[in-house]
């Protein structure tokens, strides 16, 4: 179990180093405004007709992302069913043969 301890030490060191980088990045400046946000807040609900700006972006400007997300969900559902069902499938095959 000597190597296990060594690994743990290495792990902690690497994680701390990564954390340091993350922290260093997070301490940066926070720009006050951006054009995109201004435009979206200004015109978003007018252009898409949705009062909820999140929905306006989610289903209006970035509907394509949403479709990708729905595809992921579809795949996940089908995959979960596939794996969860496989014991039954095996049984069926056994009965058949």
């Amino acid at each position, binding site marked *: 179990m000597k190597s296990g301890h060594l690994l743990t030490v290495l792990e902690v060191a690497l994680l701390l180093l990564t954390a340091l980088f993350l922290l260093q990045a997070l301490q940066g400046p926070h720009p006050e405004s951006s054009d995109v946000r201004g435009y979206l807040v200004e015109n978003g609900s007018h252009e898409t007709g949705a009062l*909820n700006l*999140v*929905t306006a972006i*989610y289903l209006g400007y970035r509907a394509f992302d949403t479709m990708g997300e729905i595809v992921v969900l579809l795949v996940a559902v089908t995959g979960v069913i596939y794996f969860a069902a496989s014991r039954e499938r095996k049984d069926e095959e056994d009965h058949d043969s």
Partner: protein
Amino acid sequence: MVEVLLALMVVNSILALQIRDMLAAVLLLGAFSLLSCLVFFLMNAPDVALTEAAVGTGVGTVVLIWIVYKTERRDEA
């Protein structure tokens, strides 16, 4: 206010990963999710809070409960 809740979330997450009883781990993860939902709400993101409540506490917990139910409740490692 947010800081306090975040600190609580840190404690929760460490505990959820460390605890031996898997059901308690799922429960703590649910509590983590609820707290993060509250934090999102405090950060003026009701949509994200809604989704997190629905997903983290609802679907996530159900699926995790399923796996604990189907496998072992004690984490031997």
